[in-house]
Each structure stands twice: as C-alpha cells, then as structure tokens.
C-alpha cells in the first residue's frame, strides 16, 4: 500500500487540478480525496509537487535492439518484404536494454513499442510497462496496432534491393492493394465461403473491424493518400509523425483520426523533414483531433519527451492540453484508456511526480516515478 499525500493532482479527466491524496493498493488506485489515511501504508509526502499519471509515449522503438537507446531500430523492421504484417515487434524486443529504465527516469511508465518504417506493412506493435526483465510479462497489450508506412523509408529500403516499391506511388499502391485484398478476404469469410487461410490478411481483420487501429507513418502529401485509403476501408487510424499536418488540417479533422506528432528538433532538410510544424498540434487540438506527442525513440532520447511538450507550448499549444498528449491520449491510442492515462479510482497506480510543471515551467523535472503502486525511480527533491 502506498499513500501519496498533499500532491497537486493533475488528473487528466475533465476535472481541474486540485490538492489531495491518492491511495494505491495492489497496483491500482483505490481512493482519491483529502486527508486520506490507511494503516500500514507507506506514506509519501508530495507537498509542493505535481502528480501526473505515468507518462506514455505511444510511438517508440525502445529495446528493439541490444544495449542502449540508439540500437532501437536495429531489429525494428525486417526489410525482407514490403508486406510483412505478420511481424510482431515483441519478438525483437530486449527487456534488459537500459532504455526501459531510462524511460522510468523520465517519468514514462508505458511505451507503445512498434515496428520501424522500412516496410509498407510493417507488422504489429505492443504496449509495455517500462520495468521488468521478461518482455512478455512487461507486455500490457499484444498486437495493439498494425503499423504501416508511406514515403521515403519503405521506398529507400526496397529501391536499394531492386524491388518494388521504387517510388512514392509504388508505396501507396502496395498499401491500397493490401487493404483491398484483405477486405475481399474478410468479406468472403463472412459470406461463409471456403477460403484458404492467409496469415497476412488475418492480421488486417481486427483492423478492418475497428478492434485495433492502423498507425501509419506519413507526412505532408502522404497524409492525403493515407486518409483516403484508410477512410475508404473504414479503418480507425492514427497518423504517425504528421510533419506538415498544418497543410492538411481539414482533412485530418474530418477523418476523425488521431495524430502522434514527433519527433521534432531536427535541422531543416529535404523531403519529409523540410517542414516540421509542431504548431499544427495546437491547431488540430482546437479542431478536436486527438493529439499525442512522441520522441520516436531512438530518433530522440526519451528525455526529450519533456522537450517536445515545451516546444509544443512554445509554438502555441495550451500547457494543460499538452499534458493530455503524453497521458490519456496515447493511452487511448494503445487501447488502454481503461487502465492508464489518468488519475482515477481503479486505474493502474502509475504516476510521474514532478517538481515544476512540465510544459509550463522551464526546468520541470521528475522526482519520483511510480509503477503499479511501487516507487520505481526516485531522484533527489
């Protein structure tokens, strides 16, 4: 039992911040209120500190390689074939990679770990706790999404091997073809026809039935292609990276998709990084699009999630809305909104305790990270 006392609580529900106590039992939040007491509970005085739900970065390649953050893309995509939906990122993950503990040091208690972007149909991702030594026990949700990629990455990968796709239109065609075939396969099955089992199309079925989202790496005009294709098949989806979203605000808002924006901070360059407009996050948030922020580890270090929040605010986003973009919004993308992302009774007792408020105060920093009721990381106050 852990009793958090006198914290300034930012619940990430509709409720405004308030000062209060939180009781954690058996890994869950069991009580929230004032002047709580519980016999035998460890008491943590959080007077003057800010209590947030454990942070969530829903787009990460953390641990998809050995030893260190930078290796995160080493085993992130298979790159043998542009259509590889049957690949599961969890089988590339190394739980002993120190990057998971590093996430805890930065207040992150949950990561969405997804394949990289070198294939068009990259495979499925999983949601994981950031502590533990067995990836299957750390896993909160297996196959929580199907990862797709448009643009330069798949193009470059197969171009070099003399294979299709060799152009942007080639990439998008492969995406459309996969969904058209998978839809026909599903329809035939639903009509009761005898069809030979196709493992690749089987992966698309929960996506076509809106049970899990498609998460599509795309930027600029690729967003238009992604929205058209995925809307046609009635898929629930998020746009990943979303650089240049400022030019497609209406299409994004109308489609009802979410966006997972980031990483930011690269120098201005060519192709996809010519226009990185984090200002679009504030605009889309105002239009009702559910926005998340990501550092896309290993592209940026997980410590930069705070920097991303700051930068989004610097470029127009509301500081309190930005808190949602690293808590309840990504929890929804992972399909774990019933367990994670807000401070409510019955949710997992995951917290990030901050001195200062991230996105508001420069120099805000993590003091404690709490995972399922246990202090997993502690810095000096």
């Amino acid at each position: 039992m852990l009793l958090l006392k006198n914290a300034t609580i930012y619940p990430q529900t509709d409720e405004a911040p308030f000062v209060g106590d939180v009781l954690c039992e058996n890994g869950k939040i069991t009580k929230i209120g004032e002047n709580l007491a519980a016999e035998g509970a460890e008491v943590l005085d959080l007077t003057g500190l800010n209590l947030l739900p454990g942070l969530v970065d829903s787009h990460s390649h953390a641990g998809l390689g050995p030893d260190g953050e930078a290796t995160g893309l080493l085993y992130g995509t298979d790159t043998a074939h542009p259509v590889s939906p049957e690949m599961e990122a969890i089988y590339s993950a190394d739980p002993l990679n120190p990057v998971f503990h590093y996430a805890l040091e930065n207040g992150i208690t949950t990561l969405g770990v997804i394949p990289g972007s070198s294939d068009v149909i990259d495979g499925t991702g999983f949601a994981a706790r950031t502590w533990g030594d067995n990836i299957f026990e750390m896993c909160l949700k297996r196959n929580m999404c199907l990862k797709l990629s448009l643009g330069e990455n798949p193009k470059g990968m197969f171009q070099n091997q003399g294979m299709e796709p060799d152009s942007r239109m080639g990439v998008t065609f492969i995406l459309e073809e996969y969904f058209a075939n998978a839809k026909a396969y599903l329809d035939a099955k639903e009509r009761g026809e005898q069809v030979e089992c196709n493992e690749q199309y089987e992966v698309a079925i929960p996506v076509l039935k809106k049970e899990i989202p498609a998460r599509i790496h795309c930027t600029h005009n690729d967003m238009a292609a992604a929205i058209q294709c995925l809307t046609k098949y009635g898929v629930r989806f998020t746009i990943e990276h979303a650089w240049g979203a400022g030019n497609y605000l209406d299409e994004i808002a109308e489609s009802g998709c979410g966006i997972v924006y980031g990483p930011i901070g690269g120098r201005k360059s060519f192709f996809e990084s010519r226009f990185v407009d984090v200002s679009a996050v504030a605009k889309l948030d105002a239009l009702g699009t559910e926005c998340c922020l990501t550092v896309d580890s290993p592209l940026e270090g997980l410590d930069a999630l705070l920097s991303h929040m700051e930068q989004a605010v610097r470029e127009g986003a509301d500081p309190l809305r930005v808190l949602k973009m690293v808590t309840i919004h990504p929890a929804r993308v992972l399909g774990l909104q019933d367990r994670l992302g807000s401070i409510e009774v019955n949710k997992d007792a995951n917290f990030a305790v901050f001195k200062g408020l991230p996105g508001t105060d420069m120099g805000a920093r993590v003091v404690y990270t709490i995972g399922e009721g246990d202090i997993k990381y502690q810095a000096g106050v």
Partner: protein
Amino acid sequence: MILKNAIIHVGNGEVFLGDMKIADGKIEEIGKSLSGGGMRDMTGKDIFPGFIDSGNFLGTQDMAYFAKDYNENSNPVTPYLDIWHSLDPDELSFQKLYQAGITSMVVTPGNEGVLGGTCAVVKTVGKNVNKITVRRDVALKGSFTSEVIRIFKGKGGPKTPMSMANLLREALARTEYGADYRSQRTREVMDAVRSGRMPLLFACENAPEMERLFEITKPYPDMKIILTLSYEADRACDSIKERNAAVVLGDTSRSSVQLAHKIDFSKLTAMAESGTKFGLTVLGPDMSWGSEMLFWNVSKLMQTCKNSETIVSMLTANPAELFGVSDRIGLLKAGLDADYVVYDGNPMEKCGAKLLETVIGGETVYQA
C-alpha cells in the same frame, strides 16, 4: 527609435527596467527615461541580446545533405583551412535560427578532423557571406571523438585515440615550417593557438578525451581551451577548472546521449555558478541539429540553476567573450550591434514565453 520600459536583460547577469535607443543598426544608448526619436512602448516585454550558438556547422551543408563541406576528409590535420570558405548564407538562413532567437553563431568545421580548421562568427540571416560575417579565425576547431576514427580508419588513420593524440601533439610541437603558403598559414594559426591569441575549440564527448587533451596541451599554459560537446564535463570538473577551460555544451537531446553519459546537470550549473564559462550549441556528436534544441538544453540546465541570468549569459556574453567578438555582440550595451530578441515573458523560466521579434543590426528578421 527608442524601446521604452522594457525588462532589459543585459547578458552579463544584470536586469533592469529601462529604455534602449537604436540608431544605424547599433545600440546608441541604454538606460532610463531616454528621449528623442520614435518611441515604442515595450511595457511587460523582456528584451535579451540576440542569442549566440557557440559552435556548429549549419550553413556548410546543403539541405539535401549532398554537399558536405564542414570536414576536409582527405586529411585529419588541416589547421590551415577556414570554415568561412564553406559557408553558404542561403543554407544558413534556411535553417531559420532566428525563430529560436539565435542571431549569431560560431560556424565551425565538424568533429571529423583532429584539427579541422578555423571558425568564424556570423549573423544567422543574410544572402551575402561578407555582410553576415562578424569575424573570421576566431578559434581553431579540433576533435578527439570517435567521429575521427569513423572517417579515417579506412584511410590510413588515425584508427585509435592514441594516434589522434600523437597527431595533435606533433602539430603543437612543430617548430619547423616551410616557406610555402600552406606551411606559413599553418604556422600563423598554430602560433596564435599556442600563444592563446586564438582559442582551441575542441570536441570531446567523454571525460577521458578531455583529460587527454589537457595532458597534451600542458606544455602550452597560455593556450585557451574551449571544450565542445563536453558531455562529461561534470566528471572532468576539476581538470577543467585547473586548466581554466571553457565549456560549450553540445545538444543532449538525441538518442543515447543522456543514456550513455548520464550528465549530472546540477554539477554543470555549479561549475557555471563558480566561474567556468559556458556556452550552448545545437551541435551533436555527428550532426548539427535544429535550432529548437537550444532551449531544450536550457530547460535541462534550469532544473538546477538558481539564477536564470546564468543561462542568459551562456547564450550571449560568454560566447561573445570566448570567441573575441564582445566589441560587436553579446550584450545590450551602447556601441554594440542592435541584435536583440523580444519576448512576452522570460523564456528561461516559462515554456510559454513567446518570441515576438528577432532583430539583427536594427532590422526585424522575424516577427510573430
């Protein structure tokens, strides 16, 4: 024109409520209750000297990464080269550093040569390289990072830290120079470095690289050393103080930098508060990153820094002094270039403080 009633952050730690008079691209006068000329009410606005990035290579590569002109990869020891010849003002302007309030930067060779060439201080907006230049040959850039080995291991070396060390030791110890142009330019630069007239800006990622550099430069006590990247300056704290070296902190946001080096920012701010001169840059181990990142590193330092003006000086007065251009930039002071930034709040303290205007030489180059 007179900016009235602004919160003026001078750059050297001083802050006061006052006025600033601009004429002919210069700060003509600064103080209280100034009069004469057009007035602009700046009540509630914070004004800082234009920020200075303390050394990266933006502007020496085209946007498509095709022209890579910041390293001369044919030879690991090229002190005679001048990065100014690689600088394209269009490419530099394209990086829009002014959107982060950066009005000047030290343009340097990359981290791939033991001695890469000399650096220049330039303004961050312009079309004409002569017009944006503040001063050339402001430092000699060198590196002991693994980038040197990455480039030269297949080209006859250096393939190891010890061979990098030898190359630097030999370059410093050299006393015989030929009469040819290359030799004479080398002598000129190395003499200036040995005597402390031109600082040595040296990339070291970890503490052993720093200790190695201090050991090799011991015979030259007049030499001025500015470390860059400096990810383990906290660990080499005592040696840095003993050598009276300055520290330019490279960008810490990229993957693995923090995880690998576990930088103790509280120690860095303690060093800064006890007199070690710090600068900041968006330079990383192998790349220069986007201008946004400058403030990401400010925030990390603010976790433990008691006085935000200490950070302001890292972005203004310190680099101007370290690179010998404090007669032109780095302070809000009469006689200096009218390079300043206007915020609606203090960006060192609040993430939401908005950059309203960036001014270089009296010209507005950015307005929110």
